[in-house]
């Protein structure tokens, strides 16, 4: 969200997001950049008080001024757009490292999220991902406007036009053992960014592919869809229990697989089932954590302003 729009920033804490990205880049016009920078320090605790993580997207060309303005306690990640070279990531790392020390932030707290949005970035994707230990999550996105523009690729088509780009980024992330962001193909021929049903289908497809981390959304209407889509359904949880029950039948038989109701049960299916159960529990914990944080803020606000009849 544009950090210069107070009604977005002030309501962010009650949206139920896992993270909010305070933007200094494309959503902020050039004449407001300096003003925007001055708002970040206060916006961080403001948006994160409901249990949400605060990220900032800085400008590709104003690294020093932007970082001075954003690296404050509470910031979880700096998103860097249009990353093209490993040196850019190393420069970010050096400046963030200094600012953390100057401002009493535990060393290594602030992550770097390098966005790959140009052909040059795609070419150097592995070197970018390995350039700093602050890059902890990496991979593909659903394909952004910038990438489409740079590559001359159409955005809204009914087939996966980014197979190579997404594959390169994801292979780098997997090779380096980073948290992998994946974007299974779900056709978007309408171009909508605010359609909750589409956001749900995208999130559900990603979760069914085993992914845990969302690339985020541009409209608050998609938050709940993403949260629900990334969480295993009750049916998934029941199915995972069933798979594990079947898998136990293999023990001591000398067989490595069996077929039940035209499904295959083996150690890989069992691992996926365990993974689903573990993820369902983590989601429930995170939901509780956020609900408690929101309740605390509401209680504090109620105490400040006595109820009016």
């Amino acid at each position, binding site marked *: 969200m544009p950090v210069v729009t107070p009604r977005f920033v002030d309501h962010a804490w009650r949206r139920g997001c896992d993270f909010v990205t305070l933007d200094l880049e494309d959503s902020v016009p050039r004449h407001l950049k300096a003003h925007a920078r001055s708002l970040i320090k206060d916006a961080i605790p403001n948006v994160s008080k409901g249990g949400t993580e605060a990220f900032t997207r800085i400008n590709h060309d104003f690294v020093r001024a932007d970082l001075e303005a954003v690296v404050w306690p509470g910031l979880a990640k700096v998103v860097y757009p249009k990353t093209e070279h490993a040196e850019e990531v190393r420069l970010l790392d050096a400046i963030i490292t200094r600012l953390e020390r100057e401002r009493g932030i535990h060393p290594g707290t602030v992550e770097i999220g390098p966005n790959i949005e140009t052909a040059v970035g795609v070419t150097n994707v592995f070197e970018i991902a390995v350039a700093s230990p602050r890059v902890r999550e990496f991979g593909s996105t659903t394909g952004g406007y910038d990438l489409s523009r740079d590559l001359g690729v159409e955005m809204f088509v009914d087939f996966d036009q980014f197979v190579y780009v*997404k594959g390169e980024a994801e292979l780098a992330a997997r*090779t380096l053992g980073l948290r992998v962001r994946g974007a299974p193909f779900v056709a978007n021929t309408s171009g909508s960014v605010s359609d909750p049903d589409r956001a749900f289908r995208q999130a559900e497809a990603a979760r069914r592919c085993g992914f845990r981390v969302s690339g985020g959304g541009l409209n608050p209407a998609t938050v709940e869809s993403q949260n629900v889509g990334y969480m295993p359904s009750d049916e998934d949880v029941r199915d995972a229990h069933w798979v594990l029950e079947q898998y136990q039948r293999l023990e001591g038989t000398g067989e*490595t697989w069996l*077929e039940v109701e035209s499904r295959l049960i083996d150690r890989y299916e069992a691992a996926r089932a365990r993974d689903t159960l573990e993820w369902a529990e983590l989601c429930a914990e995170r939901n509780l954590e956020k609900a408690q944080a929101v309740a605390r803020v509401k209680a504090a606000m109620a105490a400040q302003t006595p109820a009016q009849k």
Partner: protein
Amino acid sequence: MRRSWLLVPASKAEQVAAAPRAGADVIVLDLVELVAEEDKFETRERLQGAVAAVSAGGVEVFVQIDPELCYADLHACVWPGLAGVVVSRAESPQQIVEIDEQLGRLEHERGILPGALKIVAALETARGNHAAYDVARASPRVCGLTLGRADLVMDLRPEPSGEIHLMPYLMQRLIIIARAAGVTPVGAWWRAPDRGLLATPEHSYQAGQRGRAIGFKGAMCLRANQVEPLNRAYS
């Protein structure tokens, strides 16, 4: 000619005995994926006889080995009649060099022509795929690359389109690298819900046809009824 490579659990005597009649161009006696951990020791003891029997049946015999147990696996399988090994979860050129050296020593000790034994690297992990070009060129014995069970090892699941996540990229990447290194790309273009053991003959044929169309030369399979469709698709 290696249109179809049928993986057979080396621990199952009846399946090994039936293997030469399956119609496959290559039989891969598996020591890794299809053999229960507790049966592996005994299976290695019996492998010399299995290699001899299957090759006497007139098919090429490879053995799939586990790089973590490569000393034990190679000692068990390198006997006259063996054509080569499939290295599961191949990850680095160093690993291939070590296997190359052990093969050379065993060839010498056991009266096999020097350099006769081939290596197929199964790139089933991200690291293996990342290093694919170096792996393919690590030894003159490397004659092929395949993705093996990368979809399972890397936990790649179906997308809504039916494609298995990341596989279209990994397949094309592997084919280009194999051709650049002068080795054979082995595989088929499987789509959900066909998966290895459950793929019907019809779906195996379609996977083989799509595989051939993008440049694979012959594919691996897990069941005898998948052999004929693959032979047809790759003919």
